[in-house]
């Protein structure tokens, strides 16, 4: 799928995705003069985990609240399972939500909390008891039914909140920062559990998060939001390896970005002359580009090689080196599994390079102020036009 098309022509209604379960069509939400969500169109498929990723104020939570029915769009329409949700109040939507604060009712036991939704539907008492028991078992909280929320730890509360949102078997579950309140270790563990519960129950998840790692692990697809707009939609690897624009490239992971001008093309490449970098970037495969147009080349730190000598086949004295620059190591940060090197290239710009620490106790590790060569493969740079 081509995500960029969506970004460039946002006001044209998206062509119907036959698998779309949730359709957000040209939705805008304004609070006074401030547009929290601006002209967002999205299709979310049945059974997927869709992550809305963005910083604070990007509009991701407002979008989620519109799906739940707590806010109504200023313009545009939300369809769930083909039905226009505009006039449907939150208590009649086939949607449940897991709140960031979990919002467990403090005056009710775990069982009562989970049973609340079923009671509203008038489910028979025996059925309520059975269904509550089942879902509590699924989230491994079966033995905590009589506890009050304040008697639970953070992780346990998160499970109860999940159970409460799932017990009505909604077609769509909205999760607002589901793991933000958990500590790091617990978060990783819970991520995989969420995925397995989702697959087991076949519910469509829409997850709002500011944590890119969380989004990458959880999401089958991500929607990156910026200033109320969708910046890119795609699978985690799409977004990381082929960001659609500078914002996404910079927001997801870290990146080295160089401004340059399209020099010329060849059969299998595009050449970009960058004074900022001090060398020509050769990007494969070839793509159309107007000579002289300003573009940006983005290269991920782990895709840059760092060596003491120029790599073979690239003579150091070449008049026009391609994908090769000289620099000096300025900072080294040892992170355990890898090390980060900040290298100042001859043009003065700092580059970030990461190397996995594959072996224990390198023989002659790089040191500060050492002269090095940086190089990368032609497929590594991403060429961005916006």
């Amino acid at each position, binding site marked *: 799928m081509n995500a960029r098309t969506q970004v460039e022509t946002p006001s044209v209604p998206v062509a119907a995705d036959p698998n779309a379960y949730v359709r957000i069509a040209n939705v805008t939400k304004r609070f006074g003069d401030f547009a929290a969500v601006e002209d967002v169109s999205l299709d979310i498929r049945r059974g997927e985990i869709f992550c809305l990723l963005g910083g604070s104020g990007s509009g991701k939570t407002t979008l989620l609240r519109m799906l*739940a029915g707590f806010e109504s769009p200023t313009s545009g329409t939300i369809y769930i399972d083909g039905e226009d949700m505009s006039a449907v109040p939150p208590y009649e939507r086939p949607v*449940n939500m897991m*709140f960031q604060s979990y919002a467990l*009712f403090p005056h009710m036991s775990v069982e009562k909390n989970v049973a609340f*939704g079923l009671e*509203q539907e008038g489910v028979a008492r025996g059925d309520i008891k059975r269904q509550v028991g089942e879902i509590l078992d699924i989230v491994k909280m079966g033995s905590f039914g009589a506890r009050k929320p*304040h008697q639970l730890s953070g992780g346990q509360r998160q499970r109860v909140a999940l159970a409460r949102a799932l017990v009505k078997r909604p077609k769509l579950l909205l999760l607002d920062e589901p793991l933000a309140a958990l500590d790091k270790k617990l978060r990783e563990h819970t991520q995989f559990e969420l995925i397995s519960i989702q697959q087991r129950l076949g519910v469509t998840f829409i997850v709002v998060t500011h944590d890119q790692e969380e989004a990458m692990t959880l999401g089958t697809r991500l929607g990156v939001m910026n200033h109320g707009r969708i910046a890119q939609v795609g699978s985690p690897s799409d977004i990381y390896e082929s960001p659609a624009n500078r914002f996404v490239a910079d927001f997801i992971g870290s990146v080295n970005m160089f401004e340059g001008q399209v020099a010329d093309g060849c059969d299998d490449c595009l050449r970009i002359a960058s004074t900022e970098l001090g060398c020509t970037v050769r990007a494969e495969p070839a793509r159309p580009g107007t000579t002289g147009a300003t573009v940006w080349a983005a290269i991920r730190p782990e895709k840059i090689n760092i060596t003491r000598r120029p790599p073979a086949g690239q003579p150091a004295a070449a008049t026009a080196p391609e994908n090769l620059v000289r620099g000096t190591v300025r900072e080294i940060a040892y992170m355990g599994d890898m090390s980060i090197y900040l290298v100042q290239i001859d043009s003065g710009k700092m580059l970030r390079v990461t190397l996995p620490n594959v072996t224990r106790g390198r023989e002659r590790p790089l040191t500060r102020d050492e002269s090095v060569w940086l190089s990368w493969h032609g497929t590594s740079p991403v060429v961005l036009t916006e």
Partner: protein
Amino acid sequence: MRSRGLFSRCALILGLVFLYVPILSMIIFSFNNSRLVTVWDAAHSPTLKWYVALAANEQVLRAAWLSIRIALVASTGAVILGTLAGVALARFGAFRGRLLLAGMTTAPIVMPEVITGLSLLLLFVALQQLIGWPRGVGAVTIALSHITFCMAYVTVVVQSRLVGMDVSLEEAAMDLGARPGRVFFRITLPLILPAIASGWLLAFTLSWDDLVITQFVAGPGSSTLPMVIFSKVRFGVTPDINALATILVLIVATGIAGSTVWMRYQQRRRERDVLLAAAANL
């Protein structure tokens, strides 16, 4: 640092002494035999004779009973109206009449009582001229007036509790299929119940205690306890009032101290639960 801490601590102790000496002196002299209230008659004291006299005082007892009934009605009415107002102010966002409501609920708190009392009486007189109701002033007009000035306090208490409460609790209930009315009765009301209870107590006390407004809107034969006390006290000190004061202080003190102890106990239990829950997670 230490010297200033010492200064403020001394001020606190002296301030507390200042707050309690008058009350203590009333209590002590309620057991004094002498009619001269402030002269301790060591030979025949302590005595309970003023308590006996009080128990036989028809006028005081009748006034106290009227005050209790009015305070019950007024505090209940004030809680209902004040809760509605508090919910509207804290949860309805911007609506037409919001500023009006907000203004009218905070103004009575600082309004000089003579003005409130005068305006309410003039209202009742005008109403009587206009629609023939209320027929004269008395317990009914007192209760209506008390509801009005007490509800302001309840509104503030309820509103600040609601503002401090996580809105997502109510949203979660709605998300789970509860209509607004059910959300209020199943979620909001139970959670603000402590605030409503303290609002009720506050309203009861204010109504029970009010003299100035009541004087305006009371009629002959509807003297509340503060009115009786005031008319007695205005012409000098009377020992049976000391006895009455002692009884009231005793009731209030046990009530407040009891509720404080209970609240602290609850708090402790809660903290222990939280600790246990955290420990279970390790």
